[in-house]
C-alpha cells in the first residue's frame, strides 16, 4: 500500500509541475512579443498617451517575474483581466462560450468510443478478413479528409440534399436542451470521424495482440463464447492503453472543435479565439489559451489516474 501512495504522490507532483510549466509557457508566449506590446495591440495610429495608459493598465512597466506571479495568481482564481475588444471580463466571455466547445467535445468523445470499440472488436476477431480490410480502409480514408472539408460535405448533404439541418443555427442549452444537442450533433460528428480512425487503428492492434494471448486460448478451451471472451478478457486488458489513447484524442478533439466551429458558424471558444487574434486582444487570447491548455493537463492527469486505478501493475508501483 505504501508504494501505491508514493506512486500517487509522484503523479500529483508531476501534474502540478506540468501545470506550472504550461502556465509559464502561456505567459512567456505573450511576454516575448517583438516590440512594444501595448503599441502592437493598439496599432500605429494610437497616440503615445494611449499607449502609456494601456501599458499601465496591463502592468507592463513592472518587472517580468512580478508580472508572471500576479498573472498566475489571478489566473487560478479565474480572473484574466478585461478583454480589450469586448470590454467584459475574460472569464465571463470564456464561460459564455463553453457550452458549445465542451458540449461538442463531449459528444465527439462519446461518438469516438461508441464507434471505435465495436469496430475494433469486429476487425480483431478475424484480422485480414474482408470485413477487417474494408473497415480498415474506410478508417484510412476518414483519417485523410481534413475535418473542415468533411464538415462542408456533410453540411451539403444534410442541408441541401436531405433538408434536415441548417448550418449556423444554434440554440443555447438553457433555452431548449434537446435543440442544443441536435445543433451540435453534426459538428461533433465531423470532429469525431477522423479521430475514430485513429482510435480504431490503435485499439485493433492492441486487441489483436491480446487475443493471441495464452489466457484467451485457455478461455477458449474452457468453452467460453467468443462474445464473452471479448467482453471479459480482451477489452479489459486493452482498456489500460486505450485510456491513454483516448486522452490524446481528447486534446485533438478540442483542437479540432476550434476549426469546425468556424465552418458551422457556432459561437464557441474557437470563434472567440480567432476574433481575439484578429483584434490583437492579448488578455483574452492568453486567457483562452491558458484555459484550454489547463483542461488538457487535467485530462492527461485524470487519464493517468484512471489507468493506474484499473491496472494493478501501475497501481502497486511495479511498473511505474
Amino acid at each position: 500500500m505504501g508504494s501505491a501512495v508514493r506512486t500517487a504522490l509522484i503523479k500529483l507532483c508531476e501534474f502540478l509541475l506540468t501545470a506550472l510549466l504550461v502556465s509559464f509557457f502561456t505567459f512567456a508566449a505573450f511576454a516575448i512579443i517583438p516590440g512594444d506590446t501595448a503599441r502592437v495591440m493598439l496599432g500605429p495610429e494610437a497616440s503615445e498617451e494611449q499607449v502609456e495608459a494601456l501599458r499601465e493598465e496591463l502592468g507592463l512597466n513592472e518587472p517580468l517575474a512580478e508580472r508572471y506571479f500576479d498573472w498566475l495568481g489571478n489566473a487560478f482564481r479565474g480572473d484574466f483581466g478585461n478583454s480589450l475588444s469586448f470590454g467584459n471580463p475574460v472569464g465571463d466571455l470564456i464561460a459564455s462560450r463553453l457550452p458549445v466547445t465542451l458540449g461538442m467535445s463531449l459528444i465527439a468523445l462519446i461518438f469516438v468510443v461508441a464507434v471505435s470499440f465495436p469496430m475494433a472488436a469486429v476487425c480483431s476477431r478475424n484480422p485480414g478478413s474482408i470485413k477487417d480490410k474494408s473497415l480498415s480502409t474506410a478508417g484510412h480514408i476518414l483519417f485523410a479528409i481534413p475535418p473542415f472539408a468533411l464538415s462542408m460535405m456533410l453540411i451539403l448533404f444534410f442541408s441541401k440534399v436531405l433538408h434536415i439541418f441548417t448550418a449556423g443555427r444554434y440554440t443555447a442549452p438553457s433555452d431548449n436542451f434537446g435543440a442544443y444537442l441536435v445543433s451540435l450533433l453534426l459538428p461533433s460528428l465531423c470532429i469525431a470521424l477522423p479521430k475514430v480512425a485513429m482510435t480504431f487503428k490503435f485499439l485493433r492492434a492492441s486487441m489483436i495482440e491480446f487475443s493471441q494471448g495464452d489466457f484467451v486460448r485457455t478461455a477458449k478451451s474452457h468453452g467460453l463464447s467468443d462474445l464473452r471472451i471479448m467482453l471479459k478478457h480482451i477489452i479489459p486488458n486493452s482498456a489500460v492503453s486505450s485510456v491513454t489513447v483516448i486522452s490524446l484524442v481528447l486534446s485533438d478533439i478540442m483542437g479540432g472543435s476550434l476549426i469546425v466551429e468556424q465552418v458551422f458558424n457556432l459561437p464557441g471558444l474557437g470563434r472567440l479565439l480567432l476574433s481575439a487574434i484578429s483584434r490583437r486582444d492579448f488578455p483574452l487570447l492568453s486567457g483562452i489559451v491558458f484555459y484550454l491548455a489547463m483542461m488538457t493537463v487535467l485530462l492527461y492527469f485524470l487519464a493517468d489516474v484512471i489507468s493506474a486505478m484499473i491496472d494493478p501493475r501501475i497501481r502497486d508501483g511495479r511498473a511505474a
Partner: protein
Amino acid sequence: MRSSTASRRYLYTGGILLSIVLAFFILGLFWTPYGINETDAASKFLAPCAEHIFGTDNLGRDVFSRCLVAARYTLLVSFTGVAYALVIGTLAGLIAGYNGGIIDKIIMIFSNGIMCFPGILLALVAVAVFGPSLFNVIWALGLVFAPTFARVYRTSTIELLGRDYILQAKLMGIHPLRIMFVHILPNLMSQVLPAVIIGLANMTLFESGMSYLGLGVQPPAASYGKMLSDAQSYMVSAPWLIIFPTLMRVCYILGLYFISEWVRTSVKGGSK
C-alpha cells in the same frame, strides 16, 4: 526487408497516390495552363470542361492551375516542419534516453508541457504573436511535433543502452556524443521512419487547418485550405471547388499512410 503480398499492395497504392501529388508538384513548378490569380469575368463558375478540367471559381480563376501550385506549399510545410521537429526531437530524445536521471526528467517534463497544448492552438498563438506567415506556422508546428519524435527516440535509446556493443563502446571510453550519433542513431531508423511519415500527414492536416482559417499560407499564393474556405459560400452551386482540392489532400495523406503501413509491415516481417 522481407515483404508479403499485403505489404507490397500498400507500397503500390501509396506509391501511386504520392506520384499523383508529386506529378502535380513538378508540373506546377514549370507550367500551369492559366495564371493562378488570372481572373476572367466571362468564365466564372464554369463546371469542369475541356478548357478548365477542374472548373473555375467565383473570380473565374482556373482551379486546376491553383491545385498545381498549391501542391508545393503542402510539400514545403510538411517537409520543413517535420525536418525541424525531427532535429529538435532527435537531440532531446537521444540526450534524455542516453543520460537518464535528472536530465531525462527535465526534458520529459518540458516535452509533456508542450504536448499539453492542442497542436493547432500553439500554431495559432505563434501566428497571433509573430504575425501570420508561412515561416511562423512552420516553426510553431515543428515545435508541436518535436515531443512525439523525442519520445520515440528516448524509448528506443533506452532499449539499445543494454546491448553489448553499446556497453563495449562505453568501456572503450568513446565520447558519449559519438556513441549517440554513430552507434545509436543509425539503429533507430526503423522506429523513427513510420513516425516521420505520420508526422508529414498530420503536419499537412494542421497546415490546411491554419490556411483554412486564413492564418497559414497567405494570398496571393494558393493553398488547398484557403481554396476550400473561399469555396465555402458557393459549395451548393459549385461543388467542384471543394471536391478537387479535397481530393488532392486525400491523395497526399492516404499515400503517406499506405507507405507508412508498408514500412511497418515489411520491417516486422509482414504478418499483421
